[in-house]
């Protein structure tokens, strides 16, 4: 009999099976994900999601009998007062559900299961990718980091790898037959014993004169002494630790792509931006933040709101603060440039910017805005997305929308228009679809 403790075995052995299952019901999950973005408040987007699956899609068909056809016999327990030949009206719900002795047992019902947060986000952002990643990685090779790269024969003492060194030392000592320390100790102990015996023999000798034995003992002692000497020599010749044994941890410098990103949220805070428009913008910002989080170890957020002047604010003020005044977009862009120069050197940071606005801008500011974007900002940014939020569809073309038309050709620029919360995800999807870059 054998008792084995398997509790420490790796968990979730069926992870592979689960992935296969998820792939199988992808279309259904996509629908759930779409519903999620439409119905859920965006703030809890960052959690898992329930997916209900209908039996149809994941059925495993087998040859089985049609329940409505043919005749069946059941033997069932618990008869009360039925007599042979009694006839029982079938319950209307279906044939023999009362007797239900059907051996096929319970059918495969539709069921609901949970997607984990990661699985949910994976599907949520499936087919999307951050544009212009490759380019910036090459640019930002500047920072490097050390990583382990095997062992070296020399190095500084603090990098000595004791395990590898002792392994080699042990191998060499075995190969060259270096005597063990305990062998030497044993020989010395024996020598000691032989010596005392020889000495005591010496004492006896003067009394009764047994020459033969006396000679034997001292001979033995001499032999041992020689042996000890040889062993010592050999131990000196084959040292415990030899310079050839030494191994040091080796480190190599590897270029580290910049994996930190900063996301600028720019928003028009003038009176024309109502709460609902701000909410639309917020949804977009949150999506972008989630998305960036999946690609970068840390994503910093900078909120800049502007009227005719711009200021960096905290998130709360950004979304809920009220201000009045005109609209000068270039003020926000200048503020952004200033912050980049101060805190986010381009070689270390991936810079993303999203601007949300209802499209208003003072006419006299447009040339300056376009010039700032075209000459400076777009080249610094990985991606600059402009979304225009509106209450309803209208034929009116806003100042920013028409002004930004000439930026369309720039690879780092994208714009889109959102009128309703349900459009956020499709628009986001469109902006970041992985095949976008092909054009």
């Amino acid at each position: 009999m054998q008792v084995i403790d398997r509790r420490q075995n790796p968990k979730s052995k069926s992870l592979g099976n689960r992935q296969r299952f998820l792939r199988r019901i992808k279309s259904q999950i996509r629908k759930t994900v779409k519903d999620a973005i439409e119905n859920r408040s965006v703030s809890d987007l960052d959690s898992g999601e329930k997916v209900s699956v209908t039996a149809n899609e994941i059925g495993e068909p087998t040859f089985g009998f049609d329940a409505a056809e043919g005749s069946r016999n059941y033997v069932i327990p618990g008869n009360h007062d039925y007599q042979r030949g009694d006839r029982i009206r079938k319950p209307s719900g279906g044939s023999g559900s009362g007797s239900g002795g059907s051996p096929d047992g319970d059918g495969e019902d539709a069921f609901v299961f949970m997607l984990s947060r990661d699985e949910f986000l994976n599907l949520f952002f499936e087919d999307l990718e951050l544009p212009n990643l490759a380019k910036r990685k090459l640019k930002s090779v500047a920072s490097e980091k050390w990583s382990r790269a095997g062992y070296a024969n020399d190095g500084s003492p603090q990098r000595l790898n004791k395990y590898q060194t002792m392994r080699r030392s042990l191998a060499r000592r075995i190969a060259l037959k270096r005597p063990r320390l305990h062998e030497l100790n044993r020989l010395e102990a024996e020598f000691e014993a032989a010596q005392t015996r020889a000495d005591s023999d010496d004492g006896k000798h003067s009394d009764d004169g047994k020459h033969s034995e006396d000679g034997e003992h001292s001979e033995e002692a001499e032999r041992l002494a020689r042996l000890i000497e040889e062993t010592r020599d050999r131990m000196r010749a084959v040292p415990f630790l030899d310079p050839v044994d030494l191994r040091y941890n080796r480190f190599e410098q590897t270029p580290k792509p910049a994996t930190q990103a900063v996301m600028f949220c720019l928003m028009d805070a003038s009176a024309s931006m109502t709460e609902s428009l701000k909410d639309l913008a917020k949804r977009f910002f949150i999506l972008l933040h989630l998305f960036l989080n999946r690609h970068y170890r840390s994503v910093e957020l900078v909120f800049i709101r502007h009227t005719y002047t711009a200021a960096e604010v905290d998130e709360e003020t950004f979304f809920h603060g009220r201000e009045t005044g005109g609209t000068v977009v270039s003020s926000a862009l200048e503020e952004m440039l200033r912050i980049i120069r101060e805190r986010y050197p381009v070689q270390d940071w991936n810079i993303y910017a999203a601007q949300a606005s209802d499209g208003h801008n003072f006419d006299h500011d447009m040339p300056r805005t376009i010039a700032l974007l075209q000459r400076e900002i777009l080249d610094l940014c990985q991606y600059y997305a402009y979304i225009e939020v509106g209450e309803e569809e209208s034929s009116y073309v806003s100042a920013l929308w028409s002004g930004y038309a000439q930026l369309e050709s720039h690879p780092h620029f994208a714009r889109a228009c959102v009128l309703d919360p349900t459009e956020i995800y499709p628009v986001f999807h469109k902006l970041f679809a992985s095949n976008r870059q092909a054009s």
Partner: protein
Amino acid sequence: MDNRTLLYEGSEWDFNHLRRVHDAIEEIAIDEMGLNVYRNQIEVITSDQMLDAYASFGMPLMYSHWSFGKRYSREALLYRKGAQSLAYELVINSDPCVAYVIEENSMTMQTLVIAHACFGHNHFFKNNYLFRQWTHAERVLDDLAYAKRFIAECEERYGMQTVERTLDAAHALMSQGVSRYAPQRPVRPQDAVLKAESRKSHHEATYNDLWRTLPKAKEDAEKEDTAEQEFDAAALRLPEENLLRFLSLHAPKLKDWQREVLDIVRKTAQYFYPQQQTQLMNEGCATFIHYQIMNRLHQTGQVNEAAMLEFLHMHTAVVTQPDFDDKRFRGLNPYALGFAMMKDIHRICQSPEPEDEEWFPDIAGRGDFMSVLRDAWADFRDESFVLQFLSPHLIRKMRLFAVRDASDSPHLSVEAIHDESGYREIRHRLAQQYDLSKRDPEIEVTEADLKGNRRLVLTHRVRDGKTLSSTNCNRVLRHVANLWGYRVRLIEVDADTGHTLNNYDAVALP
């Protein structure tokens, strides 16, 4: 033997206690009950791991397939919601016999599980004729490891989707993938020659010129044609009930790895076939054994009253049989009926009534009930076991009655109840209920044209008017067509009248 020291106290378990309990039980099981078991291997697992094992046919290693993921998701959900509790144990027919126990079990539960799984099921696996004939306990785990590796390699080489399609198709045919009869031994060529010669000499010896004057029954050409067809059928060994084997041997378009995949699924199905045929007996045997062992442990003072009460509580829950009109009724509980039948045999052997003398002259009053039970466990399956051992006493006790449900009648009719005229009828019908070959549709390959249009014909022999459900049938047939590579037809033929009831056709997707 009596008044030994307690094996354990309280509900906490540890590995030493497991070992002591196992040894104490072994003493009773082997020496007193005469059981014959494989070496035991007890593995302690967590509930997550139990769910894992649930999902993949209850096997410790299994190849990857999405359906296992689906099953896991559902089981996990039911478990988390509390709609379903986990089994206390899971046991695998292998040598050594692997039994999984959950870490959350109390010490009494572990004792019960060791008695139930490591000696009950283990004895049954080792001795029942179906298991001995059809499964190879010593190499099950190796086979599974091989299957897992092979499928993983295929996925790597041919792509996940391709392998998945083949596996889906194979899984759909799993219950048509078992051989129900021992393979027919092929005729050796020299025997065939001998047979032909003896027939010839028989013809010569009984030659009568008068036969020549009779008119010939058929045209020669036609005869030759049918002869050739018959030859084809014989070469393919038609009709063939094992669809998976037939496809893996003869499907013209399959690649070698696909044939191997079909064989893997077929072997898995075959491995489980004895378990499906003996569920009632297997559980009955294990339950009876754990009941005997626990009582014996208590008698000899090795477990205390508290443990015994806990055990009885669980045991009663397991062998509860709700009546047919009870909300909890889910068909006959194999634990309940199996245990009741074993107890009944015990009763017949030890204190028979006149009725039992008449019904079971061989075993009534024989006293040594263990040897009767051991023989029964070795030589029967559910169907034959019920047919042989279900007693009038038990029919009365469980108040069994037989009901007929015909689709063309608005009524259910009671065909037999627990009275003198009904015993045999009930026994017969209950046995039929456990006959797997009657439970699954009877589908065979009857025609396969390998030269002309390459059409494959399956025939379903319809009994009692039970036709196939058409949506499922069409879907499975599409799988068959994809494996076969050409058109496939399924004909439903009434077994009694020979009339054709339905036709299904499916073509292979390119």
